[in-house]
């Protein structure tokens, strides 16, 4: 019979029919079909029978044959309200019964979620930077790449004629505006005097950047003597009065009329510090230098913003404007190549390397995004680990449920609903944590983010994410627990196989790999910061004070001011300079000396100072001498730094002649002074005497007087010379400290997240350890009865975990080495990755893990064996 069965002419067709036809009809139908075929092939021949077989088969394809007979037994209704209520009841009972586990689960998850939430808000804020400007996607700033002797640098400063050139000759631009950098100006109205920062711009700027006018019209800047105030500044000056047409005195010099008030810009805008806008024409009228360079193509000291018309891409327009300068006559040797930097990239992509965009803050968006995902993952892992570890405890429950008629779907639903309950509680807690941590977070991250309570996307994302977390975290226990066979479980022969703990161990290793990597990361970040801080700055920063000369009264009293200040006894040295010691502007390539390689254009930083500058800042002369009033020839003397000496290549620099505008004689060499980024090499710089090109006063306070007392005396002197301006000063060491703020911020944030990651990992470990100790309680009891020592038991219980953490250390070492090496490459001046950092992080992680585990291990080992053995 078997052989006959196999003689079907079309096995495929048979199989198809077999599947199609309802089970209860299969036997008769297939039998009929085959019998008919057999009889026909005897009577009509094989070929004919085969043809008919096909046709016959197809006549069976009808709904009455396909329709399945309904199951005579009732199916379990999966979503009956009673059972649903029961699931939640059991879930809450379990939460309350195992308070420790519940705490670890919920607290861990909530922390992870809160971290993810904070990071999410941070990333969202970074990505939405500048988006409040309506023409966001069409605004660009003109930058240029310049080539100093092979190294390509990028600057956002361009010459003044650029704006007019773009406006008149390139139809791709809708509008352009010149602008100064944001600068501090003393504004005065009546008795009130406040120093506020703002820009001098052309009228097109207001519309271009879509400033929201609260009073006055957007073209109010057309007159020269006008000013726009931000809402907060207007309020500070005039309170509730109408600020329009009020008079404000700028820089103690010019009276201007308020013709507009605009809404304060949001904190995540590039113009957040622009508290007032004044006309560009006013700036030109008050500044002799600017007047002189109005048509100079090689004075790169100004900003140009542009708005493109719809259509042309910034890249295409960049290609068009690239050679504007090179096409004109006398192209400079530094070969400027202009390009547009679109507003979309202003915040996140600000680094350029070799004429290409090299990212910027976007790096940290990725970095912190990854950290957020990892921390959340760690929390989910805890949840999964603890649930699976405890599965044996609930195996009996599963067995009983199954025997009284639970189907697998119900059990899966039950365990998933339990994990949803936990994740939802965790979500609510996470909201609370995030809200509480926000002020602290905002402070270290320098942000003004808040939880987006009213944003539906936030809720959708948050809730969707918790559900997803619940699903992922709950799926493993749900699928695993529901697969138990009731008979095995209830008979008591159920034993989780040796391999069920393998995924658990892998997850613990993963957790600690992340933690150790983060530890190594933060140690390295802080070492890098310390490394740069320890770098000799080349000048004395303590009790050095600087004052910006922002009113005309402060000029032209050098000797008198100096003597008055010295006479107070509060000041030991006094000098003036062009620019602060903590910064460095004004480079020149217009410099030559004997032995300079022809046709090279190295960049030198030019500094104008007074005679006393060196003594005031305490620079270190290593060769030759400082400026001195004793030599009248010092008006054409030059002091260079080590970097300049190296570049110039003088064997014996003293007495060499250097030409830069006029001839200077080198009289001294000083140690390099860190004025720019402490992570980068010091630029070649020279210092010359010039009493007119100064704008900054610096003086050193006498150490014997207290700082506040000394400053009081100094303030008195300034009141005399400059009665109209508020006395505003800055301490050089504070400003210098701010050079590290970016790195310190990253370090602090990373430390914060690493700490949380470690706490979460340890929470998980703690839970696992307590579970293992509980599981082996009888074994421990018997071992104790037979004479095991507490130390031995401790070792037995801790060994496994220590091994896991050790493995994690070995995995994380190469990963962190790779990542950190990559990060350190960003810095010219960087610390090394020493082996001890890895060892210390590893030992630290093992120590923390052991401490966590030991609590449980020792507790188990100290237990009285009678208690654990007497039951049963």
């Amino acid at each position: 019979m078997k052989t006959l069965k196999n003689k079907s002419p079309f096995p495929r067709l048979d199989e198809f029919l077999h599947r199609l036809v309802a089970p209860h009809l299969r036997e008769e139908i297939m039998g009929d079909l085959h019998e008919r075929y057999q009889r026909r092939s005897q009577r009509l021949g094989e070929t004919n029978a085969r043809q008919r077989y096909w046709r016959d088969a197809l006549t069976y394809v009808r709904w009455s044959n396909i329709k399945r007979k309904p199951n005579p037994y009732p199916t379990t209704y999966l979503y009956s309200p009673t059972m649903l209520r029961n699931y939640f009841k059991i879930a809450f009972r379990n939460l309350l019964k195992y308070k420790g586990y519940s705490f670890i689960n919920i607290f861990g998850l909530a922390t992870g979620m809160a971290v993810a939430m904070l990071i999410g808000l941070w990333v969202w804020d970074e990505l939405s930077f500048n988006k409040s400007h309506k023409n966001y996607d069409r605004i660009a700033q003109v930058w240029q790449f310049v080539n100093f002797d092979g190294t390509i640098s990028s600057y956002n400063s361009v010459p003044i004629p650029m704006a007019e050139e773009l406006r008149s000759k390139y139809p791709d631009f809708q509008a352009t505006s010149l602008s100064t950098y944001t600068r501090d100006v003393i504004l005065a109205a009546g008795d009130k005097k406040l120093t506020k920062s703002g820009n001098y711009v052309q009228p097109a700027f207001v519309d271009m950047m879509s400033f929201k006018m609260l009073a006055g019209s957007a073209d109010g800047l057309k007159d020269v003597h006008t000013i726009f105030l931000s809402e907060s500044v207007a309020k500070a000056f005039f309170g509730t009065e109408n600020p329009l047409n009020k008079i404000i005195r700028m820089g103690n010099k010019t009276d201007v009329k308020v013709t507009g008030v605009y809404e304060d810009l949001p904190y995540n805008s590039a113009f957040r510090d622009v508290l007032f806008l004044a006309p560009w024409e006013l700036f030109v009228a008050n500044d002799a230098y600017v007047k002189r360079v109005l048509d100079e193509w090689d004075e790169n000291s100004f900003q140009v913003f542009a708005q493109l018309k719809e259509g042309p891409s910034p890249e295409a327009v960049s290609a068009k404007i690239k050679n504007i300068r090179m096409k004109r006559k006398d192209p400079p040797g530094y070969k400027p190549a202009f390009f547009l930097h679109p507003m979309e990239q202003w915040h996140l992509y600000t680094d350029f390397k070799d004429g290409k965009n090299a990212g910027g803050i976007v790096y940290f968006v990725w970095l912190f995004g990854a950290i957020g995902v990892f921390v959340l993952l760690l929390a989910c892992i805890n949840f999964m680990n603890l649930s699976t570890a405890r599965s044996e405890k609930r195996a009996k429950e599963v067995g009983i449920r199954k025997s009284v008629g639970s189907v697998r779907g119900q059990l899966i639903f039950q365990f998933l609903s339990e994990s949803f309950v936990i994740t939802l509680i965790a979500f609510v807690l996470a909201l609370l944590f995030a809200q509480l941590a926000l002020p602290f977070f905002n402070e270290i991250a320098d942000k003004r983010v808040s939880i987006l309570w009213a944003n539906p996307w936030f809720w959708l994302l948050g809730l969707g994410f918790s559900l997803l977390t619940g699903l992922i975290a709950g799926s493993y226990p749900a699928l695993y627990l529901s697969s138990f066979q009731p008979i095995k479980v209830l008979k008591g022969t159920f034993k989780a196989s040796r391999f069920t703990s393998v995924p658990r161990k892998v997850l613990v290793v993963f957790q600690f790999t992340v933690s150790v990597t983060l530890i190594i990361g933060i140690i390295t970040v802080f070492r890098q910061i310390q490394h740069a801080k320890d770098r000799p700055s080349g000048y004395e920063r303590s009790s050095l004070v600087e004052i910006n000369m922002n009113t005309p009264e402060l000029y032209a009293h050098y000797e008198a001011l100096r003597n008055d200040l010295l006479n107070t006894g509060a000041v030991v040295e006094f000098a003036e300079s062009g620019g602060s010691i903590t910064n460095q502007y004004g480079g020149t390539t217009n410099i030559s000396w004997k032995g300079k390689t022809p046709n090279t254009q190295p960049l030198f930083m030019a500094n104008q100072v007074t005679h006393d500058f060196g003594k005031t800042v305490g620079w270190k002369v290593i060769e030759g001498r400082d400026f001195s009033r004793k030599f009248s020839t010092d008006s054409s003397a030059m002091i260079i730094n080590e970097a300049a000496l190296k570049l110039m290549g003088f064997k014996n620099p003293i007495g060499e002649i250097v030409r830069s505008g006029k001839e200077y004689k080198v009289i001294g060499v000083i140690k390099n002074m860190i004025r720019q980024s402490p992570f980068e090499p010091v630029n070649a710089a020279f210092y010359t005497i010039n009493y007119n090109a100064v704008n900054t006063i610096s003086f050193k306070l006498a150490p014997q007087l207290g700082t506040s007392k000394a400053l009081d005396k100094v303030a008195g002197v300034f009141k005399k010379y400059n009665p109209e301006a508020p006395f505003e000063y800055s301490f050089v060491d504070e400003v210098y400290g701010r050079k590290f703020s970016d790195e310190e911020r990253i370090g602090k944030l990373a430390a914060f997240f690493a700490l949380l990651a470690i706490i979460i990992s340890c929470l998980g470990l703690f839970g696992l350890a307590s579970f293992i100790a509980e599981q082996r309680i009888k074994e421990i009891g018997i071992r104790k009865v037979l004479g095991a020592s507490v130390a031995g038991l401790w070792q037995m219980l801790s060994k496994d975990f220590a091994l896991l953490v050790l493995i994690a250390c070995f995995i994380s070492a190469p990963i962190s080495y790779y990542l950190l090496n990559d990060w350190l490459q960003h810095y010219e001046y960087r610390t090394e990755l020493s082996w001890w950092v890895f060892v210390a992080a590893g030992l630290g992680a093992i120590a923390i893990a052991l401490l966590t585990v030991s609590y449980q291990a020792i507790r188990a080992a100290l237990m009285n064996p009678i208690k654990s053995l007497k039951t049963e």
Partner: protein
Amino acid sequence: MRRSDLGEFEEVVLLTVAVLAPHAYSVSIAEELEQETGQTVSTGAVHAALQRLEQKGYVTSLLGEATAERGGRRKRLFTVTALGGRVLNDVRQVRNRLWERIVPQVTLKWS
């Protein structure tokens, strides 16, 4: 009597079941019909008709013996129920009455 629920093909199949009793099943019925009418009759059509007849209660079925030809599968044997018999009878009487009322001249013309 609900005459309308017995289709023509069903009627023929029901008659054949009566003729072949007690060995009436899809294949035998289909072959019998092929012989009688000279047209191809598929078992699928017969099977469907039998299902309908069974639903209406005109036939009952039971599983018969397995044969080698069927690949070791059993056949479903059909017998006409009392209800089925009455329906057949009714149909036949209606026809007979009508036949008897045809005037002889008309039948002469057909032959």
